[in-house]
């Protein structure tokens, strides 16, 4: 049985007195897509760059395709595709020239002209890199990551700065990679992206893993942790509602006008909520009972404060 695509155990990486990654472990199975989620500064890029061999672990072990990414860099690099977070081309280079150069480094590259076309860069072939839009630069970077037909690709915030059409294209590409047996480690802070693409999600914060599982496992309901949401005018006094609800229920307003009732949500609870709204003379909109979203999980685990 071949080694996992990525296996990180107890990784620690410090910058001076700052510990960017603090005992992190994760595993990407062959042919699987792992979504690495976390707020800004959580250690996502540090983790990825350590796997790519650009950073040296202070302690812990990192194995990528069974190799040490620093000591075995020469053997590993031809087998992986890397999309760094921002940059990655000469300021004056044209998209096709850059992709041709990266393609020349591979034994069996995809057709660069085809890839340029697929990624919607055909209209910008004469434009120097520094004058491409952020989304175009990202698409060229993605093309460079894929052109060598790698076994494993690292995508560091692949859809940052992309419009919705381009984002959808990236999702289709990642799905195609997965279908063709390519392993993928992607970082994102878009929950929707992780939910749509990842077989497994690892949420990290302050350099530590705070959750690890399939999207289904992470958002699974516990009987006493069901959710009822509705929208109404913001800032209503929910004390009366809380009093009318069964013991154990909680009422919060996580966003202005967006109300959340958590606890054991049964038909009686729904009826109590709508009755209270009627008393208040407000129409409860978008009322729904459902599972937690990955975003709920993420915010519960990493807090709601803004990160610098």
């Amino acid at each position, binding site marked *: 049985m071949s080694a996992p695509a990525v296996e990180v155990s107890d990784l620690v990486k410090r910058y001076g007195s700052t510990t960017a990654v603090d005992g992190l472990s994760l595993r990407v199975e062959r042919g699987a897509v792992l979504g690495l989620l976390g707020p800004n500064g959580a250690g996502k890029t540090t983790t990825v760059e350590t796997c790519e061999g*650009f950073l040296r672990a202070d302690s812990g072990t990192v194995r990528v395709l069974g190799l040490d990414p620093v000591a075995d860099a020469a053997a590993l690099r031809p087998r992986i595709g890397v999309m760094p977070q921002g940059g*990655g081309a*000469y300021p004056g280079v044209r998209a096709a*020239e850059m992709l041709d150069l990266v393609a020349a480094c591979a034994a069996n590259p995809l057709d660069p002209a085809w890839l340029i076309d697929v990624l919607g860069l055909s209209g910008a072939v004469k434009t120097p890199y520094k004058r491409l839009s952020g989304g175009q630069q990202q698409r060229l*970077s993605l093309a460079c990551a894929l052109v060598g037909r790698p*076994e494993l690709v690292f995508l560091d915030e692949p859809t940052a700065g992309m419009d919705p059409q381009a984002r959808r294209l990236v999702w*289709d590409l990642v799905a195609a990679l997965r279908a063709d*047996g390519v392993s993928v480690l992607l970082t994102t802070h878009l929950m929707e992206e992780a939910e749509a693409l990842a077989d497994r999600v690892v949420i990290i914060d302050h350099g530590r893993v705070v959750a690890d599982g399939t999207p289904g496992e992470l958002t699974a309901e516990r009987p006493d942790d069901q959710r009822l949401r509705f929208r109404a005018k913001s800032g209503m006094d929910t004390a009366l509602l809380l009093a009318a609800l069964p013991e154990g229920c909680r009422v919060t307003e996580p966003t202005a006008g967006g109300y959340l009732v958590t606890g054991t949500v049964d038909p009686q609870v729904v009826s109590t909520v709508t009755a209270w709204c009627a008393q208040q003379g407000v129409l409860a909109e978008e009322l729904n009972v459902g599972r937690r979203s990955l975003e709920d999980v993420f915010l519960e685990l990493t807090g709601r404060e803004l990160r610098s």
Partner: protein
Amino acid sequence: MTFPAGTFTPAPGRGRTGRMLLVHARTEAVLTLRNGEQVLLTLLIPLALLVGLSLLDVITMPAPRVDSVTPRVFALAIMSSAFTGQAIALGFDRRYGVLKRLAATALPRWLLVAGRVAAALAVVAVQLVVLGAVALALGWSPSAAGLGWTVLLVVLGTLTFGALGVLLGGALKAEVVLALANVIWFVLLLAGGIVLRVDALPGGMAAVVRLLPSGALTEGFTQALVDGVTPSWWVWVTLAVWGAVGGVAAARTTKLV
């Protein structure tokens, strides 16, 4: 968008070495020759000095003036592209993450250096062909005996200035590199034995300037092309020492970003 099954089936591997080197060097050379500021520095300023100093009597020089000017302009052209141009390009390439991008491919580390060296030599060849043609049009008559030595000096000078350019461009912030590379270029042009030859400088200063790569390269070209003799041993030693020290230091200090 949907993709036929098997489109991305892994087939990794390292490209052929010759092709990697060719495409890398070609890309670097094309980018240099397409960059307006680089062309100004590497071609237009040396051309202006070649024509200006040959036709105008601003500095005392033995006649025919073009014979004295051309070796100096050759040295300037090499310093401009291999040192200043290389340093600035590398500073901004690092800023744009190019080195990291290329390091993430199958391109071996030595090829990353070899490609840049090959590109630098190609750009210098273009410069010297253009400058040499203009000099010939101005009546330049180089000593045939010195042409072989000239080629050797071109290669050694490009490697030496290239190593120093990488040393400067590989470690500092792009803006700092830009400023320093231009200041050093200007100082060496005026006081480094290029515009004013070592012989024309006061004794103490001449001794120092002889030990600079700019002074040594200018003297070497002058000895080969004007006097038709084998350039002095100190020319070779000075260039080789600067190149070796610069190269070893650059290998230790150059950062990918």
